[in-house]
């Protein structure tokens, strides 16, 4: 009978070759399947020229209509309707063409005045039509649709003016905890950190001018 002594050395060896094989295969698989570019889309409805559709939207448009127009001189921002103060401003071309940052700033201040309006129309009235390309159209929709972007962080201040913002229960609770109405120093955020609190609710929901209508066929 063989008796194992306590001091007997157990010679074990961990065979990690299979796991390395697995790792290598997994990395190859991930490299082939990885999507390093994240595709996103910006939605815009086409203008509808049917009488029924026109009638349907008339009541809202009679009150307030926001139109961003591509013109040869720049971007024109105009509001019409009973509920709006008539606005008609031209945002001139910047160094690199259309000034979407200025447009964004104007739209944020406009949104603080009309927080419950969401519709915006984009129109195109240029003689030099080739001056506008797909990139400019997406930039316009991007700057209209969302009021809070990392690159526009300096403009976030304007969002705090937004009134009558519909908050969910968690946000209301946070608002109460923060003591609304009291002047309070906002703690400095670290770079990349998301904005918190009720004033950020607008940006989290993407509640900019998010009902966008485009009129590329000139019917608008």
């Amino acid at each position, binding site marked *: 009978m063989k008796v194992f002594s306590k001091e007997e050395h157990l010679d074990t060896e961990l065979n990690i070759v299979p796991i390395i094989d697995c790792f290598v295969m997994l990395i190859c698989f991930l490299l082939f399947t990885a999507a*390093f570019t994240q595709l*996103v889309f*910006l939605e815009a409805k*086409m203008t509808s020229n049917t009488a029924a559709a026109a009638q349907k939207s008339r009541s809202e448009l009679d009150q307030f209509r926001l139109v961003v127009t591509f013109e040869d001189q720049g971007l024109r921002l105009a509001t019409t309707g009973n509920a709006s103060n008539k606005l008609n401003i031209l945002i001139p071309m910047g160094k690199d063409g259309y000034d979407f940052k200025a447009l964004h700033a104007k739209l944020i201040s406009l949104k603080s005045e009309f927080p419950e309006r969401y519709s915006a129309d984009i129109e195109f009235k240029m003689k030099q039509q080739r001056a506008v*390309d*797909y990139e400019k*159209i997406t930039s316009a929709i*991007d700057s209209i*649709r969302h009021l809070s972007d990392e690159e526009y962080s300096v403009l976030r201040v304007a969002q705090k003016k937004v009134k009558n913002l519909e908050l969910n229960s968690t946000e209301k609770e946070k608002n109460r905890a923060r003591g609304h109405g009291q002047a309070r120093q906002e703690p400095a955020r670290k770079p990349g950190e998301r904005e918190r609190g009720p004033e950020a609710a607008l940006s989290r929901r993407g509640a900019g001018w998010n009902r966008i209508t485009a009129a590329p066929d000139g019917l608008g």
Partner: protein
Amino acid sequence: MESTFKKHRHQESNFELQITALIDTLVIILIFLLKSIATDTLDVEQGKHMTLPMVFNGMTTGKGSRLDITAEAISWNGQKYLDLQGFDTKKPLNGDDGWKALNTAMDATVKQEQADKTFDGKLLLQADKKTPFPALQEVLRVAKSHGYKDIRFVGAKYN
């Protein structure tokens, strides 16, 4: 002769492969890859030979028929129908046949989706960022005539 053999055996027994550093590196690469994979990408393949514009925000989930515009071609759901030269949609290289084929393909898609009751008028438009407005206008007019009214402009998200 016998002494030489013993010497060799002794050397082999001391051989040890140090692979800890290799495993460390592999694990780090693995974590990097897992982190960089976009888990909620749009359910659409990026079109070939095109540079998409960068956008800061946008929706990440959605479906629709896919229309691609590059300097050389217009494709519908991945199938090329028009051969272009420098985005010139007025004079496609394959003439009017290209437009007819595109119209027929769009019509077939719409009819098929209407029969399946899945048609919702949503169109995923992917175009090269330099696609001029007149080319977009022409293509969107055709899409609109087939009932596509919700245009989804696809772009690449800034990270």
